[in-house]
């Protein structure tokens, strides 16, 4: 179902979609929808909601593709950011009440292992991010990862780790700044 496009091919297809080319838009969908559904499903833990959000995401992508700038962002990053933000918006809108039936399915299909088959991002970028995350202490790196993958807020992370809110904030803020310094070094 999903086809593999290189970053340049994906950027090109996205650019064409921005000019109204539906065939190119379809190629973007084929190449990225499984990844984006993984992202939305991990946050929403409900397949139907996650697919609803996926649908919204691609309609947004269609409308905004014209503003995608390949010189400033990688295409998969741009797409993941839209999908993730949409899923989190839905999660926090309170509309995500039907998560009971499929939560197990969701976690069965989603794991933290790398997924080389879908490595649309360059391997170097990912390796670097992982290296830099690895330099943080485990709980900080873990909290940042959980915040990203599950869309958890400071509040949720603090109660999960059973630490005061201020402590969690301090971990993540310091962690983010160290991560950034490492990525830019």
């Amino acid at each position, binding site marked *: *179902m*999903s086809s593999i496009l290189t970053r340049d091919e994906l950027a090109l297809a996205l650019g064409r979609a*921005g*000019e*109204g*080319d*539906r*065939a190119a*838009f379809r190629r973007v*969908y084929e190449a990225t929808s*499984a*990844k984006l*559904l*993984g*992202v939305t*499903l*991990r946050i929403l833990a409900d397949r139907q909601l996650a*697919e609803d959000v996926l*649908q919204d995401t691609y309609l947004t992508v*269609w*409308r*905004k*593709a*014209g*503003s995608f700038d390949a010189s*400033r*962002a*990688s295409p*998969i*990053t741009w797409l*993941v*950011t839209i999908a*993730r933000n949409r899923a989190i918006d839905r999660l*926090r809108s309170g509309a995500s009440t039907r998560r009971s039936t499929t939560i197990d399915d969701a976690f069965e*299909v*989603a794991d*933290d*292992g790398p*997924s080389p088959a*879908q490595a649309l*991002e360059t391997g170097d970028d*990912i390796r670097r*991010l992982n290296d830099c995350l690895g330099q943080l202490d485990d709980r900080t790196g873990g909290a*940042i*990862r959980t915040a*990203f*993958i599950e*869309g958890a*807020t*400071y*509040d949720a*992370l603090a109660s999960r780790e059973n630490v005061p809110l201020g402590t969690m904030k*301090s971990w*993540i*803020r*310091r962690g*983010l*700044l160290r*991560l*950034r310094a490492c990525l830019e070094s």
Partner: protein
Amino acid sequence: MTDPTDTEGLDEDRALAGELALRVLSPAEEAAARAREAADPAFAAEVETWNEQLAGLADGVAPVAPSPYVWPRIESGLPPVAANDNRRLAFWRAWAVGSTGLLAASLAAVVVLMAQPSPVPPAPAPAAPVAVTRVATLTLENGAAAMTIAYDPASGELYLAPTDKMAGDTRVPHLWLVMPEGGVQLVGAIDGSATSRHNLGRALSGKAGQANAVAVSMEAPGHTPAADKPDGPVVASGQLQRL
């Protein structure tokens, strides 16, 4: 607001941008940060950088193939486009193909909706508008018709009938009055995807009664040009005629 354990303002901004990108803030904090993002380009760029750098974390999420019905749903949510599914400008360039019937139908609707007997010649004073309905067919550079409008000076009501194909353009169409003494006057952004009705305010209504032509420019999303000068290209125009 500043966490005393953290460093200077630069780091403070950078951390806040990271928190916003990561979506860890409370709803109130997030709303404040979003407002900042909208008003402060440097901060917005910082958020974008964070998005770029954090998105690699999604590599740890396993892909899941969507159900087969998802794509058809997306496709059915797309605006209809011209048969030759190519470029953004396809609408403007190739509009004429197959659109004559549509335009005729639009024009017929305009006539039915707007026509009223009105033997009085138009007076220039906005205070005394007369009921002569104006219509214009806006055409592209190549002569193909793009949109029909009708304007009733008595009620100030403006009726626009674009084709459904205009929605394929990511820019936002803006309607302009072309004044007899030269110069243009912005009416406003218009819906390029569906017929719409507007009621012009008194000031504009008077000008619309005097205008001898209308034009459409395509402006960048979110951008409002000055009232007397389009910033985007003028893609269509047409003479206003009395019905």
